[in-house]
């Protein structure tokens, strides 16, 4: 006879999120403990209750892991975030320069005007998202075990800087191009996604068993 709890699976997304923030040996023991208690709760109080408990534990655990990463290595985290800001400043002009060099080289404006408009607007914005992801990957590579904290902090700092720039822009009476806002948000997310990519690659390299 197979009980309901034998089929219970811990929430995969919660597992994945904890795995992103916990590194190596810590992730193994931490997720193992959560899974063990999940199985016990699922057989005792039902799968729905166990899943809700698991999500609550995952949320609190991630908050502790983030706080701990700042407490353990505040200077390293700050240094990589500053390095990321400098790198971002260095590469942020590349999409414009590259795109216009290519568009002028092939005289796209004369032959395909709509394509020119697309590449000169959305094409450059897509280029920014790609360079942001690159910056996120570099920052994550420099902060082994704290990839997510470093990239999320960098994303938040850039978000705050953009917010301040927008306020100054509006305060000086200049028109605001709101259509660019989703692209800015895309840039911040791309930095974090860069961190996720590096973290997952490292996690896969340690050959840990699957989540459930």
């Amino acid at each position: 006879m197979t009980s309901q709890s034998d089929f219970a699976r811990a929430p995969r997304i919660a597992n994945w999120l904890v795995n992103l923030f916990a590194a190596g040996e810590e992730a193994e023991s931490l997720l193992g403990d959560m899974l063990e208690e999940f199985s016990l709760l699922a057989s005792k109080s039902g799968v729905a209750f166990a899943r809700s408990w698991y999500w609550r534990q995952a949320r609190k655990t991630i908050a502790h892991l983030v706080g701990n990463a700042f407490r353990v290595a505040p200077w390293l985290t700050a240094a990589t975030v500053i390095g990321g800001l400098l790198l971002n400043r260095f590469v942020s002009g590349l999409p414009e320069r590259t795109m216009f060099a290519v568009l002028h080289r092939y005289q796209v404006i004369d032959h395909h005007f709509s394509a020119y408009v697309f590449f000169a607007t959305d094409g450059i914005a897509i280029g920014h998202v790609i360079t942001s992801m690159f910056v996120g990957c570099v920052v994550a590579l420099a902060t082994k075990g704290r990839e997510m904290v470093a990239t999320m902090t960098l994303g938040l700092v850039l978000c705050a800087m953009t917010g301040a720039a927008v306020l100054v822009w509006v305060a000086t009476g200049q028109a605001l191009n709101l259509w660019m806002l989703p692209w800015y948000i895309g840039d911040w997310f791309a930095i974090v996604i860069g961190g996720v990519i590096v973290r997952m690659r490292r996690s896969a390299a340690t050959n840990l068993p699957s989540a459930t």
Partner: protein
Amino acid sequence: MSNRDYLGEFEHIVVLALLRLGDRAYGVTVRQEIEVRTSREVSIGAIYATLNRLEAKGYVRSHLGDPTAERGGRSKRFFRVTAKGMAAVNRTQRALQSMTEGLDLIRSYS
């Protein structure tokens, strides 16, 4: 680390849980022991953050057990208190006893 270092409130609770559990002390049992004895809901993340801090201070030591199926093939990380940790918990305990000596806490604050 100076020999006048005291344990923080939650560190103290975690070390006492390790002492109570002995060889069975790992994340799940420590969390449950604290929850049962203090009626305080604690997360596994809080336990690990504290244990990692205590390990960095040299108050506890950890080792990995064998992987088990119920844990999705993951190992348990067992913890035990070191001599330095015992000294710290005794120091903290003495300080607390000395501070509460002569106080009738139950009558004063009930």
